[in-house]
């Protein structure tokens, strides 16, 4: 092996080493990425009737809805034009059920820093902004009559909940 060949292999080794040692960022975990940001503006699609009802049930009860209950709710939903009025009715129906998974008021008041972001994530699938966090903390701290159920009611009947 002559000198030029040695130089050639040395240069190639150096280039290979530089490339090979470059840090590789692994971004693919084979898991669907869920982006939780604080923006509501990217929700432009209206949930369908069935989507809204089934998602609402899952959010409130933590379980999927039975087919019989879905029929009842879908019939109610389809039979009246002002969907806000129907959603209010369905919300009352869900939240008045003893099986509804609503934190206690004591837990809510003692853990506002956890309760508020968790509520945003549960219903809006996003984190609250600093302003939203501040608003709800102020409101709940100042008004001792607000219940966790009231907060859930407001979220379930808000415009943002109808969109994804």
């Amino acid at each position, binding site marked *: 092996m002559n000198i030029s060949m040695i130089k050639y292999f040395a240069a190639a080794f150096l280039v290979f080493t530089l490339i090979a040692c470059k840090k590789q960022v692994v971004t693919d975990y084979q898991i669907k990425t869920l982006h939780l940001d604080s*923006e*509501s*503006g*990217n*929700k*432009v*699609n*209206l949930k369908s009737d069935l989507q809204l009802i089934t998602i609402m049930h899952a959010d409130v009860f933590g379980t999927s809805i039975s087919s019989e209950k879905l*029929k*009842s*709710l879908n*019939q*109610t939903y*389809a*039979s*009246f*034009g*002002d*969907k*806000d*009025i129907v959603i*209010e*009715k*369905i919300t*009352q*129906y869900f*939240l*008045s059920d003893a099986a509804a998974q609503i934190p206690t008021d004591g837990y809510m008041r003692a853990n506002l820093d956890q309760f508020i972001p968790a509520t945003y994530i549960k219903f809006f699938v996003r984190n609250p*902004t600093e*302003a*939203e966090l501040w*608003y*709800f903390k102020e*409101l709940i701290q100042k*008004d001792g*009559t*607000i*219940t966790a*159920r*009231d*907060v859930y*009611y*407001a*979220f379930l*009947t*808000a*415009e*943002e909940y*109808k*969109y994804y």
Partner: protein
Amino acid sequence: MNRRSFVKKVGLTAAGVLTLPYILPTGRLFAATGSRKANHVVFCLFAGGVRSIESIYKNDGNLMPNMLNGTEPISADIINSMSPLPSSPLIQPLQNSGTLFRQFRFGSGPTGHFNGHTTAITGQHTNNTLSLREHPSFPTVFELYRKHSNPIGAAKNTWWVSNSSNLYPILNYSQYPGYGPEFGANQISPSSFFSSRTKDVLDADLNLNANEKLAISDMRNFLNYNFAGGLDQLANVKNTQAEAEQIQAWIKKMIGEYKAGLHSNPWGISGGMNGDMRNVFYAEEIIKEFTPELLVVNMTDVDVAHTNFSGYCNNLRKADWAVAHLWNTIQNTPGMANDTVLIVAPEIGRNGQTNSLVDANGRFALDHTSSDPIAREIFCLIAGPQGVVEQGKVINNIEGESIDIVPTIADILGFKNGASGILPGSTLTNAFI
């Protein structure tokens, strides 16, 4: 007087001059866009495809004695299939309170129920491309009324009472640019809405106190204010907060009555009320609660004619009785009595040729197909206050068609100018004084 004071006084005077004409003795802040013939219209789509041979020409006797003059006996071979009905709610047949167009026409388009409804509610002809899944392409009478009334017509004043929660609800607003859900009607399918399946949902009540309601409203307003998403894509018809609360209270009252069994047969019909009667009953409840300026209600039970001719005749009688009950309720509702025009017209007719299905009385059934010209022959009855609608008038020649009903409603309620350029039909002027 200094310059500032002078300018201020001139400004206030000008504002007063501009504003005063719009504060009317009736309490309305603004005058309507045009003069009105009456302040309320009820339009009844009657009743799922009615052939003039059985209605106007009474081929099997007068099957509509509450609406039409005449004592022609019902044909002997079908008489035993007719249910007993209570005596007429009216002193005289409805045609004496208005004008009857005996040779009205469904002029163009496929003679399907949905086509007929769409034409009646939009005032536009349709064709075979009409989608059953999409809101109409042209503005509905509800949107035209709400958008072109001044002030803008409230949703609470506008109702579409459909006897089916399938297909027909989408006729409450269109896709037409500049219209849409913002101007749509309050739609309800009452027989489906107030039912054994839905009663627990509608009866649920958190019994929120005033403070809780206020807090929830504040929180929701805050959340809505911060939502920058799909608000440009209005999800549905909306009522104001006050209107929504009135509607909620009415729903609560209705479902309470339903659960108490008060809606099972409120008219005391022997053998029970059919779907058409129930739909008209709920339309009457809306009339009594909201005194709407525009209400459209449909009936469809005569469509049994596809398989059962005698059942068709029987349901025609029931639909006729229901219309009389409706008119009686209107005339006994403060705010609507003597200030309402009722328009009754089938959305389509039925074929001259029978199909091959025979009922228990040996009568052949009737379809409705676009190729049969008899299926385009219908009638229209316009009843209303004396001094507004011609009383007891009968128009025997071919005059008027389905697309003329929306312009007629526009003329009655004073929004025809706003709707000009959109509607191909004309006002049925011969019905009015």
